[in-house]
């Protein structure tokens, strides 16, 4: 009795696991393949990095640097981003709006 029940639940588990995996197995495999490719590349690369942690840990605040960068070197992307946001706004409103009438 007991054995039977156990085996039944085991089968049930296997079946449900199987049913869960069946539509996902391809996705999993592909994702793992991709992950493997990336990880192999990541681990076999000698990434350049600063030799040590920046000395002045307190001075880690980079807001100012970022701000400067945004308005000097990256002013063009910033401007473009403005347009992006405008168009996203337009697009989103247009698409999301209900009936015109």
């Amino acid at each position, binding site marked *: 009795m007991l054995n039977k029940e156990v085996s039944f639940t085991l089968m049930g588990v296997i079946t449900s696991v199987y049913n869960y995996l069946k539509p996902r197995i391809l996705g999993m495999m592909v994702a793992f393949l991709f992950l493997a490719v990336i990880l192999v*590349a990541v681990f076999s690369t000698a990434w350049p990095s600063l030799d040590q942690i920046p000395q002045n840990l307190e001075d880690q605040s980079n807001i100012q640097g970022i701000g400067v960068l945004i308005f000097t070197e990256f002013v063009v992307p910033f401007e473009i981003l403005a347009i992006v946001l405008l168009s996203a706004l337009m697009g989103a409103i247009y698409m999301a709006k209900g009936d015109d009438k």
Partner: protein
Amino acid sequence: MDLMLFAPEITLVLTGLAVLLIGLFLPTGSKNILGYLASLGILIALLFTVSSLGTQATAFYGTVSIDALSQFFKIVFLVVALLFAISGIKYTEGNSHTEEFFTLGIFATIGMMFVASANDLVVLFVAFELASLATYALAGFEKKNPRSLEAAMKYFIIGSLSAALLLFGISYIYGATGTTSIPAIAANMDVLVSSPMGLVAVVLLIAGFGFKIALVPFHMWAPDTYQGAPSVVSALLAAGSKKMGIVAAFKVFIVALIALQAEWQIAFAILAVITMTYGNIVALNQTSVKRMLAYSSLAQAGYISMAFVVLTPMALGGGILYALSHGFMKAGAFIATAAVVYMVLSENKDSTDPDHIDNFRGLGKRMPVTALSMTIFVFALAGIPLTAGYISKFVLFSSTIQAGFVWLAVIAILNSAISLYYYAKVVKYMYFLPTNSEKISEPLPYTIALIIAVIGVLVIGFWSEPFIYWSMEAAKVLLIPGGI
């Protein structure tokens, strides 16, 4: 720094904003004027660009450069945008959201133009996204049409995926080189060259750009989207944003990642062969003309990718020239389809697939100008002489042989022979199959757009010298080590 260098972009931004603002105050019935306004703005931008042809400059801390390459591609984008805007006048007739249509189109064009002149990956990525985001909404512009929505949805999801892949790839390049400036990357390639990361980054970038270029297997959205989106938008996508992918790839691979040449040459060789063959073969028995044009557009993308493999000045020039020609041909073909769709819908509002090839029956009688233009476009796409398609194929394929890639040229040429079948099929339907329907008056904006495209196709085909010259100039920009 001379702001005049950015006159075209500024003009476009102002035009876009103007269209948007004026549109707010116009009643639905008189929004037609927006289309004219947009066309005018694009035309002015085009004139600015043409007049500054040959200028060379970098601006904004070296993040943006103006050179022959960027100018050439800007012209391509502006021409396509112009065709888009002119034909859009008819398409948006009576629509209450005309201003969104044109503004999004213009903004997308701005994105493409900035990609063309980007000299920094940040600029490139953001501009790339601008072009994508603006067109997502355009693809779904017919929001009552399930096809259009589905097209937008697929375009959006695959677009986001490829944006993620692109960003992921860029992040590795940034990590390995410590910079996002394209010339600086070229100078700091040691890490990437010596590790497998280089290859991974290259492939991730190819996936990112390949989405726009529609290279197999990153193309899957393209047939669905081109088919489902409004034809005019498909024209913008196939003729414009595809070229944006190409110019981005040119810049990133040939200028920045030239040290990884071997990797991406092989990758592009594989993709080019698969793409042109797949595109042509699958196009053979399509019944939807737009879908057929989409697959043909895959094939053309395959041809253009050959430039990456051959990598001689002539091949790159050929690829760039091909991009221009393809802009005219493909935009023209989609606009011609748009005219047919308009015709079908005006007869039968509930038609589910107005671009079915059966609707092209007897088009030669019903819409003679459209049919003739379509004939010229498909013959140009097939590479019949004295059209833009021929001279571009001529330069591109011949350079392939010159560089010794005879096998690649043979495959390409066989492919272009196969393609004749489905192009000829369209002509057959238009001229040889009978129809009982009446001749109809062709919508003027479509006709004007078609005639512009036809003139473009024929002028490039006939008076090729200046076009070849400028595309060669553009190619030289790519091959000067380290960029500008």
